[in-house]
């Protein structure tokens, strides 16, 4: 209704400012204002309509305020309504003129017609002008006592509006206690419901300062109030029922008979036509029975049918919201839904976010009895036109295979995928076969026979290629041409762009070497040479590590590279169970739709500013993970974990694709295979940043290896930074606490940079190219927060940076701490120049 602020200042040429029209209207309104001629209301109505239509399309008509008020002396209700609408819209920007309207609104509040009384009172309270509150108290007081329920209903909401304009006026007039009385005694349920919602809001806001208010808030969920509301619940409107049900979820019944009474009373709400009521009821049921395990199970059985009906009956939007809740329940108790798996079959027309939910549910409910049919259905989707869904469904088949004991038929299916000659199908299937082999090594014979037929040239996707290479290394004794395939891959080392694939290639060649030494020797030499010369930190480190361990002792090397393996038995979950429980507690809220608990996404205004102490858990370990090993990785014992980690991250990423923002997921919950074999974990982890770069240079010299100079990074000459700086999070945290702030300033970010900052990762990469590494990052548009560090070249002097970028204002707040205070200014210049280049390069 109000024009956006921008168009007030500079009306775009395509949209006329309407100035001449507005002054025209002004003139006409003025002429009509005093007139009492018959038919004047009709002409007024036309004019009002015009004014409001201008307002609607965004033309500023606030200059007509005076004239509109003058014309408002009328008995025509349509005119009044339009006038109220206009006044409500512009009073806030014209507080002085708003005073003019008080008079006629107050008069209308005493009108004979309850409709006009109500409307006038609503408009009066919607003016929201702070200096007019004194005029509200009187009409509100009499409105609350009005004989007509419509007026009372409006007045109750008016009290809430008054509270938001001026809390003290509202409290001083003792309105809350009047509302409380109304809530418990009014005959009209809508008045009761409005009282309830107003009181909840007022007392929750007051509770922090006043003990009495928090007591009153507690009293709302006391037994008498709850029972009083529950007994009348059928008289409430459907929306008010939702409100009452929400209140009931907060109520703690004293014993189980009370729980059963409440559930019996509410049971028919499960059959309500309004989905919001059904879901609110389900939430009450689930919350009430949390402590009673067996009843809780029965509740699942009971709510199943209403939920499934809601999914199939409502509009697509409703079914999506319900499906998200169903998804949550299915994940919690898959066995309850295992006979209803057909409800989760995807329809052709469904949008992909719905299909994705359904695929996850199908995966979850698979058990011995329905696996065959579910997998058959999933295989149908593999030929789907929608490629991402086809991929998901192949992954789903794989997940089911990993859950089940009888995988015979599934393995056949997967192997069929490999023969489908579609590159993405082959790619997904390869990754799955690899996972499958880790869990069921006994299938290796059948799988290897098929995998052996796949030419590595036809596999392009890094993950799939890595999986293929892993199999070549792991089963080189069974695959005739494994050494030669690996050799040809090593020959094309430079064309391989993915570091992940190169890492796997190194390991695979090593493994193959121990199984078939003569055939692999030359490939191993070439691979190690290429690996050590590699510009990628991890590849370089791993090659060097293999080289050294081979020099040190070949049998130790074999123990490290080819340890006796046990099959992986359990997949750790991608989402921690704690998070799932939090979401479950927030059933029937947005959390469920986003699959994140609300503390991760709600109202940024109310969110506590990030503090370092508790944020490491929430921030993603950025690219710096290449240098700094997150603690949990140390516990892992298999080189393949790298692959798995990135895989999981990617699935996470893709899940986030649908929603506009990504909440920082924490690196530590990105869990990986929980393997049982605990073999020499520390030694065998090649990515462990055991040696600092300086040290490794020294050893390199000893070994006489020609290490190519690290790629020169252009940086201002006054301060050279170490391109391979390493720092682990705990040290960072410790230093951050100890050091004083050396510099604190605001830097403006160029517009291209802001545009490129769609996700934190982009900036991380950019800064890394300037030798400034990120240790943690988080936040979402418009506020991103980064923690960077850098190290002085050939010195162990660190710079720590906290940088908060606000994309809407294009400003960055930077705090710098440094070991060496003298150079902090230089570093700041460097940092600023690096940041300013972001987006332009």
């Amino acid at each position, binding site marked *: 209704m*109000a024009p*956006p602020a921008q168009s007030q200042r500079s009306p775009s040429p395509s949209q006329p400012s309407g100035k001449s029209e507005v002054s025209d209207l002004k003139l006409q309104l003025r002429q009509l204002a005093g007139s009492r001629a018959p038919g004047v209301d*009709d002409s007024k109505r036309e004019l009002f309509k015009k004014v409001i239509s201008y307002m609607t399309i*965004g033309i500023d008509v606030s200059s007509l305020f005076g004239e509109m008020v003058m014309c408002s002396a009328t008995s025509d*209700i*349509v005119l009044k*309504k339009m006038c109220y*609408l206009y006044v409500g819209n512009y009073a806030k920007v014209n507080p002085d003129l708003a005073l003019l309207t008080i008079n006629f609104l107050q008069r209308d509040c005493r009108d004979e*017609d309850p*409709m006009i009384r109500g409307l006038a009172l609503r408009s009066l309270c919607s003016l929201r002008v702070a200096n007019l509150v004194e005029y509200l108290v009187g009409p509100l007081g009499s409105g609350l006592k009005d004989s*007509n*329920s419509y007026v009372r209903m*409006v007045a109750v909401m008016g009290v809430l509006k008054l509270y938001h*304009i001026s809390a003290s006026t509202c409290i001083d007039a003792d309105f809350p206690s009047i509302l409380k009385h109304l809530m418990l005694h009014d*005959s*009209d349920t*809508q008045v009761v419901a*409005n009282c309830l919602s107003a009181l909840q809001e007022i007392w929750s806001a007051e509770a922090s300062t006043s003990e009495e208010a928090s007591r009153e808030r507690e009293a709302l969920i006391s037994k008498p109030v709850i029972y009083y509301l529950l007994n009348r619940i059928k*008289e409430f*409107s*459907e*929306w008010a029922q939702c409100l009452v049900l929400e209140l009931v979820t907060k109520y703690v019944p004293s014993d189980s008979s009370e729980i059963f009474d409440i559930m019996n009373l509410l049971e*028919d709400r499960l059959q309500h*036509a*309004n*989905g*919001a009521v*059904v*879901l*609110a009821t389900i939430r009450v049921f689930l919350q009430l029975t949390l402590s009673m395990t067996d009843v809780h199970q029965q509740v699942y059985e009971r709510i199943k*049918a*209403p939920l*499934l*009906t809601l999914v*199939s*009956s409502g*509009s*697509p*939007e*409703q079914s999506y*919201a319900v499906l998200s809740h169903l998804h949550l329940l299915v994940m919690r108790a898959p066995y309850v839904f295992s006979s209803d798996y*057909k409800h989760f*079959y995807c*329809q*052709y027309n469904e*949008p992909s976010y719905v299909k994705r939910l359904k695929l996850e549910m199908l995966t979850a409910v698979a058990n011995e009895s329905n696996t065959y049919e579910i997998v058959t*259905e999933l295989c*149908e989707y593999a030929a789907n036109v929608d490629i991402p869904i086809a991929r998901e469904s192949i992954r789903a088949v794989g997940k089911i295979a990993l859950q089940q004991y009888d995988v015979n038929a599934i393995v056949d299916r997967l192997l069929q995928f490999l023969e489908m000659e*579609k590159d993405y199908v082959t790619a997904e299937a390869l990754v799955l076969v690899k996972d499958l082999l880790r869990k069921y090594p006994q299938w290796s014979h059948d799988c290897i026979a098929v995998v052996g037929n796949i030419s590595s040239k036809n596999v392009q996707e890094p993950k799939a290629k890595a999986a293929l290479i892993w199999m070549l290394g792991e089963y080189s004794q069974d695959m005739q041409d494994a050494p030669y395939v690996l050799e040809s891959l090593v020959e094309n080392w430079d064309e391989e762009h993915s570091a992940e694939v190169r890492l796997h290639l190194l390991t695979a060649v090593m493994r193959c070497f121990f199984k078939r030494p003569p055939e692999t020797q030359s490939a191993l030499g070439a691979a190690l040479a290429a690996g050590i010369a590699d510009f990628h930190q991890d590849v370089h480190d791993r090659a060097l590590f293999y080289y050294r361990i081979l020099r040190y002792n070949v049998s130790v090397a074999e123990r490290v590279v080819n340890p006796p393996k046990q099959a992986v038995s359990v997949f750790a979950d991608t989402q921690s169970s704690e998070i799932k429980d939090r979401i479950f507690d927030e059933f029937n*809220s947005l*959390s469920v*739709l986003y699959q994140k608990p609300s503390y991760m*996404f*709600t109202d*940024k*205004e109310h969110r506590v500013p990030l503090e370092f102490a508790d944020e490491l858990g929430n921030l993603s370990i950025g690219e710096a993970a290449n240098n700094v090993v997150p603690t949990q990785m140390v516990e892992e014992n298999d080189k393949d974990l790298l692959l798995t980690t990135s895989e999981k991250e990617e699935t996470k990423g893709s899940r986030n694709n649908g*929603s*506009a923002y990504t909440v920082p997921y924490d690196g530590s919950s990105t869990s990986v295979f929980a393997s049982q074999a605990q073999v020499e974990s520390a030694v065998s982890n090649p990515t462990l940043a055991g040696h600092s770069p300086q040290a490794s240079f020294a050893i390199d010299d000893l070994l006489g290896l020609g290490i190519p100079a690290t790629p020169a990074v252009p940086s201002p000459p006054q301060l050279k930074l170490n391109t391979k700086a390493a720092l682990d999070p705990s040290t960072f945290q410790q230093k951050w606490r100890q050091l004083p702030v050396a510099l604190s300033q605001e830097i403006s970010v160029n517009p291209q940079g802001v545009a490129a900052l769609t996700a934190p990762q982009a900036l991380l990469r950019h800064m890394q190219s300037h030798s400034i590494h990120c240790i943690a990052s988080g936040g979402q548009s*418009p506020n991103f927060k980064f923690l960077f560090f850098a190290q002085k070249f050939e010195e162990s002097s660190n710079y720590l940076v906290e940088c908060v970028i606000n994309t*809407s204002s294009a400003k960055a707040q930077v705090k710098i701490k440094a070991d060496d205070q003298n150079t902090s200014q230089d570093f700041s210049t460097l940092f600023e120049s690096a940041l300013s280049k972001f987006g332009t390069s």
Partner: protein
Amino acid sequence: MLQCIFLLSDSGEVMLEKQLTGHRVDRSICDWFWDHVISQGDSFKSQPVIASPTHYLFQVVREGITFLACTQVEMTPLMGIEFLCRVSDVLSDYLGGLNEDVIKDNFVIVYELLDEMIDNGFPLTTEANILREMIAPPNIVSKVLSVVTGNSSNVSDTLPGATGSCIPWRAAEPKYANNEVYVDLVEEMDAVINRDGALVKCEVYGEVRVNSHLSGLPDLTLSFANPSILDDVRFHPCVRFRPWESHQVLSFVPPDGEFKLMSYRIKKLKSTPLYVKPQLTSDAGKCRVNVLVGIRNDPGKTIDSITLEFQLPPCILSADLNSNHGTVNILGNKICSWTIGRIPKDKTPSLSGTLLLETELERLHVFPTFRVGFRIMGVALSGLQIDKLDLKTAPSRLYKGFRALTRAGEFEVRS
């Protein structure tokens, strides 16, 4: 708590803005939203609940109009979505359909309606019956009158009595010379059929719609001959729960006019009225298509408006398809639609032809899914039957009518 509602046209223009709370939501959110929708490609494919940098947005798209609601606080998602659906229902009921022009012509009424439907971000009255008493809908008569006399008051000056009554869905006692009540069973059949003709899934979703014009406070009882086949039911608030629980009888005081009394679901149906047999055989860069459609189980009434639609796979260069009955069209977005109408007595309708594949492809890997549409008047395919409808204290003249209709919902045949 919703903070603001916008109505957007199909080009993203803001047609209407209704601020609901003291927190003013800037219009620029709509620009963000529209950019988001465009980046998603297809507005129907974008999620109904999305998060913008500043607000959480609910969107419901009806007839090209986007109903957008914003909030900043945690709330129950279904309340937002259901409310928007109701708004669109009420508006289309009031304005006799939804489109950009009709909303722009009647924006004052839309404002009035929103004013009564939601206050301070919390939904109040969404029953069309009650709203109609507060705000008179624009009808042709009043439109003509307003043209002739220039008078277009569309507000009744009486308050609805029902706001205070304990039957909130029913307006104060109306009076009719002819007392009529009509009950319609409308069913939609959702089915998935495999390439070998096996029924993967078959389910019926049905609604009992009632159109009642009865004087006073009528108390109706509706019973079914075979209520046990119902798997799950949902009721209009007017239905009393206890009689249903004990005897499967619907006992209710109806709202005046048309409403949805009940919706139900019946799963695990064993057969479909039609069969569709698609055959696709690929050979040397060409794919031969042959689809037969015929009656599998005669429902006893004519099946009409039969259509068949499928998306041609993206790897197809051209398609040459013909049928021996009905018309075949290939639309711009590579959707092939075959309108059959009724099945003729003398032959089985068939669609045949060839698809030319992209040059390097030997055979087709992606198989189309055929979506089937049909309509059968006079039959509820689930087999649900109305036994009788009784009216306590029946007026002297009462007309009762029953009808049934089944149509295809999501009816898919895979190939």
